[in-house]
């Protein structure tokens, strides 16, 4: 069929709103960020081109200490994939078997996802409060006074204390994703396996989990890239403190931009974040593909 010019024009017109948004707000600013990352700029005077000096400083400066921020983000990604996701999967598997009150549990588990992160952060600050927080009071009521901590202020506990609400909030999100996947498993497969005398665990392992692999892949990508770019809860809970113990790349970036007026260096972190997110997305895709081949 011959396509008239107007057809092509129409294609373009249909794409136009999305393209404007996508190129104008994502692609162009990222290219600009790339440029800024090569400059020394305090946000006030004109940017001064300095080549790769920012990148060099980023990875060598002790006062920026990007490695600690990256390590924290990686740790979060690790806990997210190794604790949060398995637990979410377990919940999804259990709930898909329709135990008593499954709707209730589904609703309750998903609820934290809908509450504003700032609200959750402020609530957990109160929970962790050294003097009046529920956690310490609970420990004291059990007679475990020595277990009480200044949870968010002590550099040995702050990171874990900050991770808990992050992991807690999004368990429901991943659970519902996985639950959706499990619902899509053809019941014939299940029934056949049941007739063959498979136990629940075996059905989960050999039928359901392989079947929902695409969704698991999405969950893992979300969990890992989400951890790399995590900001809101850390910002509210500790803002990277105490002594940068809970710093993640995003809080470091905001700190450099708006506290230290280092727009060039802030952009360098932005670029690094983009690269990292892509690298991890690609790696995860490869891992899941390899698995398929086996």
């Amino acid at each position, binding site marked *: 069929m011959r*396509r008239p010019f107007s*057809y092509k024009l*129409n294609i373009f017109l*249909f*794409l136009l*709103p*999305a393209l404007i*948004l996508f190129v104008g*707000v*994502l692609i162009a600013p*990222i290219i*600009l*960020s790339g440029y*800024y990352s090569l400059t020394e700029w305090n946000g006030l005077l004109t940017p001064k081109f300095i080549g790769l000096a920012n990148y060099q400083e980023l990875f060598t400066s002790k006062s920026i200490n990007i490695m600690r921020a990256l390590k924290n983000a990686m740790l979060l990604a690790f806990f997210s994939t190794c604790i949060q996701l398995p637990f979410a999967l377990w*919940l999804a598997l*259990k709930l*898909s*078997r*329709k*135990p008593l009150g499954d709707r*209730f*549990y589904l609703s309750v*588990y*998903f*609820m*934290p*996802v*809908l*509450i*504003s*992160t*700032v*609200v959750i952060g*402020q*609530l957990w600050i*109160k*929970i962790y409060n050294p003097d*009046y927080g529920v956690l310490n009071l609970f420990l004291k009521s059990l007679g475990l006074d020595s277990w009480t901590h200044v949870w968010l202020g002590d550099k040995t506990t702050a990171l874990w204390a900050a991770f808990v609400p992050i992991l807690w909030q999004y368990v*429901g*999100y991943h659970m*519902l994703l996985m639950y*959706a*996947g499990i*619902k*899509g*498993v*053809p019941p014939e497969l*299940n029934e056949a396996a049941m007739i063959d005398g498979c136990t629940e665990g075996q059905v989960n392992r050999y039928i359901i989990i392989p079947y929902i692999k695409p969704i698991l892949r*999405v969950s893992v990508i979300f969990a890992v*890239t989400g951890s790399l*770019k995590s900001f*809101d809860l850390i*910002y*509210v809970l500790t803002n990277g403190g105490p002594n940068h113990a809970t710093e993640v790349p*995003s809080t470091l970036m905001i700190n450099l*931009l708006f506290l230290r007026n280092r727009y060039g260096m*802030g952009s360098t972190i*932005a670029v690094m*974040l*983009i690269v990292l997110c892509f690298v991890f997305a690609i790696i995860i895709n490869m891992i899941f593909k390899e698995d398929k081949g086996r």
Partner: protein
Amino acid sequence: MNTATLDKKYPPVRSNKKPKKTAGQIASYVVLVIWAFISLFPVYWMLTFSLKNNAEIFGENVIGLPKYWVWENYTRAMNTGNMPQYFLNSVIVAVSTILITLVASIMATYAMTRLDWKLSKTTHKFFMLGLTIPIHASIVPLYTTLARVHMLNSYWALIIPYSAFSLAMGILISVGFMGDIPYDLDEACFIDGCGVWGTFIRIIAPLMMPAVATVGIYTFLQCWNELMFANVFISKDSLKTLPVGVQALSGQYTTDWGPIGAALSIATIPTLLVYVFLSKQIQDSFIAGAVKG
């Protein structure tokens, strides 16, 4: 196709025999109950301490229901901050973002999946890059650009970036939904002489209605909580969104927990109410997104 129809086609995985309650099953049920408790507790605690005075919060009655209901906390939260305004701002921003994301992503999806051209697959992949790009990475250029065009301190300063960053997810979901619309339909319409736009408006758009809720939920989740842009792009109090407003208010009342609790509750209750009444629809739409995506 949503899960309601899924349910009909595929009965739940449950054997007809009454299963014997094994120890393992009981244990796992206990875990379900405990996790439900852990999910609910912070909200319960927030609602109760929002109605207590400091004496109760700080020792007398930490987790019980309030003995004296201090409604004054709510009036104080309302008077100091501008909670209803913040809430309204968040709703305006979220709804506009959802609308823009919907229109842009459904149009783009139509062009990429129903119209036939060489680079459609590549374009789709290009948009999918948006799924992994961290929103925060564009903050400096966006900021300077918005400032230059005098758009800081306006709803648009948030709506436009939020829409752009919700687009990838919107397209991902729309592609799934649009795949369910039989091609015969638009071909028939095409033959009737409807043209591309006619087909889109008469056939595709109405049939994409089920996608609206799903794209809406995902977009809502992305923009309702956003803090970094909202914090930096908006400095006018009357335009602040809920996260920024709540954060600022908490900074003012660090030692007076009652009003903070009230502010947090005001920020949360409307969403919770909607959720309580529409939880099934919300979950189903969310699930539909996962299945399509």
